[in-house]
C-alpha cells in the first residue's frame, strides 16, 4: 500500500485538466505516440466536442521515482458539472489527494474555489498546480497571490507546468508520491469497496469502478451490494490501464474494477459499498445516497414509426446510465413516447444528444418540469411532473412546488446582478457572507423550477463566467400554480403545455409564442400561436403566410434541380411534426426548451 497513490485532478473548465491527464498518461508510457489522441480519457464524442467529462474514467499509471522506487498512481478523472456533483463527491471520496489546476493566465476562478471546497470536505491533500506557464499572458506571481488570498493555500508549494508543452510533468509525479499520503486501509478486515462509477460493456455486463477501503476481493468471491443486498459471483478483478488488465485480486488501498455478471448499470448504485457475502463489513462506507431525478420531460420520436426503435435505443442507453429513469407516455400531438427523469438540464441534454448521435434517433423533447404536489379537496395528495396530468383546477385545495437552497459563489462586483437574478427567480431568504475578501457567497432559497432552465447560464453571464453554484433540495412550499397551454391555429399542442407559477405565466407564454414565431417557418396559411391559462388567452403571435414562392423558369436542367430540392425538403419534412395543417419543426420544440433568450 506504501506504493499506491490515489488522486484526482480538479480545475475550472478550460484550465487544462484533460491535457494534463493526457500528458501524465504519455509520461507513464501507457500509450505510444501512434495510439495517442487528445483528451484520451474522454471516450464519448460529446465529451470531446464540449470539452467536458461526463463519465468518470480511471487509469493506473506505473511510475518509477527519482529514487528508483516503483509506484502505482491511480488517476480518477471526474465529471465537471453540478448535475453530476454526487458522482464527483464519490470519486473524491476514493482519493487521498488532488491536483488543483489553475490557469497561469486566467488565475483562480469560481469552479477552482468550488472544487477546492469539495476536496477539503474529503480531507484531501491539495497540490496546487499552475498550468499553461508557457503562455505569453502567463502571470505566475499574480496567480500565486490569488492562490494564497482566495484559496488560502501556500503558494510556495504550487508546482509550475505546461501540460501542453510537457514542462514540469516529472515534478508533478514526484509531488504526488511525496505529498499525497498512501491509502490507509486494513487488508485483514472484511471487504469494504466504494462504488464510484459503473460502465456497461456489451460482452461483460457492468464493469464496476471501485476503491477498496478494507479487505480484498478476488475472482470466485461472492460479493454483496450493501444497499440492495443482492449478491453476485466475481468473475474478474483488475486495474485500469487504458484497457482493463486483470489481476489476481484487489486489496485495500487499491482502485480498480470488478466484473461480476451484473446485468445493467442500473443494478448498481454509485456510492454503494461492496462487501463479501460470507464475511460482510459491519457497516457500509459513509456518504451513500440514492440519486433522484429532479427534472422531467417527455421524449417522442419525430416519426411515429420510429417508436419501437426509440424503445430499443432507450433500453440500450439505460444500460449505461443508471440516473435516467423513464416510463411510457403519450401525447395527442406527438403520439407515443416516454416520460423521463433526469438529474438536471445538462443530463437531459446529454441524453438527448447521445440518443440522436449514438443511437440515430430523431426525437422531440417537451418542456422540462419539476415534480409539483397538489392537495386535492378530497384530502388526497398527488405528485405531478407532467402537465398532462395537471389536476382539475376546481379540485385543487392547494399546490406546492419544490424548493432548493442554492449556494452561489461570485466576485464582489457581481453582487447586484446576482441579487437581482435571485429576486427575479422568486428567491427568498437571500443571505451573503465574505469567505475571502472580494468574494461573496450568497445563499438563497429558490423554487427548483426557476433554476432548471437557464439559471446557470444566466449566472455565468452576469458574473462574466466567475460565478458557480450548487444546490440542495430543502422541501416543498405552497405555491400558486397554473397550467399554461400553447395553441397553434386553435389546436392545443399538449407537448408544449407547462405548469408554472401564476406570476410567471404571462411572461413565459409571451416568450414561448415569440420563440415559436421565430422557429416555425412561414407556410401556406396564416398561423396563430396563442398561450392560454384555463381557456383565457394571455399571449399571442402570428406567422404570416407565403405571398410568393415560385421558380420563374422550369426547363431542361431545372427539372432535375427542382426535384432534388424537393427530395431534400421531403427528408426535412420527416423532422417536422404536423399539428393540424401546420408543420412544426423539431427545432421549435427545442427552442422552447431554451427558455429565455434576449
Amino acid at each position: 500500500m506504501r506504493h499506491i497513490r490515489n488522486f484526482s485532478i480538479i480545475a475550472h473548465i478550460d484550465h487544462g485538466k484533460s491535457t494534463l491527464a493526457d500528458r501524465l498518461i504519455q509520461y507513464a508510457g501507457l500509450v505510444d505516440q501512434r495510439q495517442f489522441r487528445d483528451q484520451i480519457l474522454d471516450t464519448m464524442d460529446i465529451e470531446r466536442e464540449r470539452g467536458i467529462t461526463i463519465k468518470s474514467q480511471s487509469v493506473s499509471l506505473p511510475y518509477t521515482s527519482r529514487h528508483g522506487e516503483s509506484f502505482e498512481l491511480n488517476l480518477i478523472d471526474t465529471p465537471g458539472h453540478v448535475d453530476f456533483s454526487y458522482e464527483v463527491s464519490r470519486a473524491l471520496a476514493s482519493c487521498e489527494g488532488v491536483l488543483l489546476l489553475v490557469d497561469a493566465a486566467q488565475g483562480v476562478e469560481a469552479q477552482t474555489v468550488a472544487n477546492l471546497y469539495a476536496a477539503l470536505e474529503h480531507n484531501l491533500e491539495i497540490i496546487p498546480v499552475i498550468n499553461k506557464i508557457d503562455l505569453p499572458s502567463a502571470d505566475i506571481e499574480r496567480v500565486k497571490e490569488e492562490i494564497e488570498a482566495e484559496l488560502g493555500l501556500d503558494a510556495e508549494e504550487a508546482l509550475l507546468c505546461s501540460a501542453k508543452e510537457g514542462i514540469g510533468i516529472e515534478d508533478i509525479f514526484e509531488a504526488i508520491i511525496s505529498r499525497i499520503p498512501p491509502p490507509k486501509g486494513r487488508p485483514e478486515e472484511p471487504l469494504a469497496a466504494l462504488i464510484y462509477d459503473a460502465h456497461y460493456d456489451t460482452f461483460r455486463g457492468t464493469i464496476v469502478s471501485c476503491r477498496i477501503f478494507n479487505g480484498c476481493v478476488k475472482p470466485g468471491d461472492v460479493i454483496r451490494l450493501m444497499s440492495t443486498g443482492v449478491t453476485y459471483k466475481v468473475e474478474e478483478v483488475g486495474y485500469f490501464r487504458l484497457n482493463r488488465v486483470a489481476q489476481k485480486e484487489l486489496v485495500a488501498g487499491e482502485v480498480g474494477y470488478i466484473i461480476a455478471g451484473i446485468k445493467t448499470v442500473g443494478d448498481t448504485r454509485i456510492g454503494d459499498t461492496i462487501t463479501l457475502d460470507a464475511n460482510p463489513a459491519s457497516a457500509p462506507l459513509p456518504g451513500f445516497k440514492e440519486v433522484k431525478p429532479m427534472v422531467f420531460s417527455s421524449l417522442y420520436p419525430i416519426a411515429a414509426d420510429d417508436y419501437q426503435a426509440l424503445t430499443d435505443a432507450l433500453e440500450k442507453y439505460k444500460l449505461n446510465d443508471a440516473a435516467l429513469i423513464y416510463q411510457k407516455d403519450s401525447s395527442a400531438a406527438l403520439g407515443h413516447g416516454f416520460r423521463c427523469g433526469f438529474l438536471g438540464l445538462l443530463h437531459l441534454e446529454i441524453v438527448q444528444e447521445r440518443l440522436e448521435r449514438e443511437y440515430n434517433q430523431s426525437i422531440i423533447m417537451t418542456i422540462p418540469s419539476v415534480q409539483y404536489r397538489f392537495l386535492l379537496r378530497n384530502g388526497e395528495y398527488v405528485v405531478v411532473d407532467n402537465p398532462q396530468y395537471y389536476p382539475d383546477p376546481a379540485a385543487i385545495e392547494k399546490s406546492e412546488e419544490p424548493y432548493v437552497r442554492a449556494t452561489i459563489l461570485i466576485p464582489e462586483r457581481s453582487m447586484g446582478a446576482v441579487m437581482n437574478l435571485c429576486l427575479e427567480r422568486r428567491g427568498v431568504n437571500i443571505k451573503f457572507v465574505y469567505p475571502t475578501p472580494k468574494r461573496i457567497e450568497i445563499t438563497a432559497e429558490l423554487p427548483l423550477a426557476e433554476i432548471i432552465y437557464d439559471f446557470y447560464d444566466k449566472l455565468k453571464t452576469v458574473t462574466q463566467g466567475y460565478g458557480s453554484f450548487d444546490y440542495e433540495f430543502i422541501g416543498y412550499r405552497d405555491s400558486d400554480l397554473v397550467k399554461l397551454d400553447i395553441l397553434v391555429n386553435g389546436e392545443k399542442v399538449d407537448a408544449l403545455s407547462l405548469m408554472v407559477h401564476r406570476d410567471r405565466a404571462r411572461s413565459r407564454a409571451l416568450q414561448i409564442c415569440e420563440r415559436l414565431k421565430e422557429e416555425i417557418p412561414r407556410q401556406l396559411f396564416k398561423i396563430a400561436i396563442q398561450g392560454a391559462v384555463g381557456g383565457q388567452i394571455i399571449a399571442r403571435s402570428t406567422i404570416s403566410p407565403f405571398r410568393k414562392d415560385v421558380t420563374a423558369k422550369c426547363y431542361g436542367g431545372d427539372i432535375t434541380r427542382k426535384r432534388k430540392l424537393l427530395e431534400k425538403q421531403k427528408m426535412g419534412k420527416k423532422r417536422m411534426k404536423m399539428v393540424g395543417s401546420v408543420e412544426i419543426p423539431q427545432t421549435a420544440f427545442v427552442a422552447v426548451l431554451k427558455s429565455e433568450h434576449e
Partner: protein
Amino acid sequence: MNNEQLPGLYIHVPFCGSRCLYCDFYSETDTALIPAWLQALEQEARIYKNQCSAFDTLYIGGGTPTVLENAALGSVFECVNRHFNVSADAEITVEANPQDLTPEKLRILKACGVNRISVGVQSFNAQDLHFLQRRHSVAEALRALELIRSCGFTTLGIDLMYGLPEQTVEGWLATLAHAVTFQPEHISCYQLTVADGTRLAELFREGTVALPDEHEGAVFFMVTAQFLEQHGYVHYEISNFALGESNRSRHNQKYWHHVPYLGLGPAAHSFQCGCRWWNHKSIQRYCQELAAGRLPISGAEVLTEEQLHLEALSLGLRTAAGVDLLPLYQNQHVASLLPKLLESEYAQIIQGRLIPTRKGFLVADRLARALM
C-alpha cells in the same frame, strides 16, 4: 409518362453575340467554334437517328440561334432533316435576338419550315435593356417584330422580364401594353432571378443591385396575369401565356408532362423511358467526345416511380392542367390539407384534377412541398 405522344427535338446553339447580365444558360461568344460544333452536331444526330427518329416539335434554342450565319443556320436544318423525321404539321420554333433578324434570315427560316419565332425582347424600356446588358435597342426590337409579321410568320412569341431594379409596376405595364400591340400568339414573362455564376449574382451579393421583395414580386405577377388575361391570353404555365389554347408551346409542354424529348448540343437535356441525361457543358468537350465516337453525355439519372411522381406534382402545379387528384388521397396528411387549399383559394377541383388558381401559381413551389 406520356409515351403515346411523339417526342420533341431540341437543339442547343451554344453561341451568343454577348453575355447578358442574368443568363445562366450555356453559351460562348467565340464564333470560331461554330464549324466544329456543327460537325459534332452532325455526329450526335447520326448516333441518335436509329433510336428515335420521329418528332412532332423541333425547338432551336440557345444561346442565340440567330447569331449563326445564314449558311450555318441552314446546315442545322439540313442536319435535322437528314437524320430525323419531323412531321409535316410539326411546331418548329427558333429563338431569336431582335438585332440579328434580317429579311434574308427570316426568309431562310421560313424556307426551313420554321413556323414559330420566339423573340427575346425582355423589355420595351431602354433603361431596362441597358441594365440587362442586352445587345439590342428598343427600336431594333420594334423593327424586328414588324419584320417577323411582314414575313408572314403566323406564330410570334415574345419573351419579357419583370422585377428588374428601378422597374415600376407602371413601367412594366407599359412594356406589356407595347407587346400586345403586336398581337403575339405567345408571351413569356419571367421574373428576373439571380442565378449562381452570373454577373447579376455578383452584383446582388455586393449589394449594388436591389430586387423586389416577395410582396412586390407578387404584385408584378398578379398585374401581369390580370393584364394579359384581359387581352385574351391564357395563363397556362407560371410564366407562359398563349393567345388562345392552340398557341401554347407544344414543345415546352412536353417538358412539363413527361413526354420524351431528345436534346442535341452542349448542355442539352434529354428524357426518355424514365431516364434523363444531359450533355457536357463545354463545346470543346462536346466536340472531343463526338470526334472519338462517343456520346457527349455528362450525367444521367434513372427516375424511380417516386421521383417521377414528385416531378409530376411539382411540374403539374406550375401549369393550368394541374395534377391528378386521386393519388393525392393516398397520403393522409395531404388529403386533410386539400379542403384548406380549396377554401384558401390556392386551387380548385375540376374534372378530377387539382388545378392551381392564380394565387396558387404564386406559391407553386410551396404547394408542391405541402402536397408531397
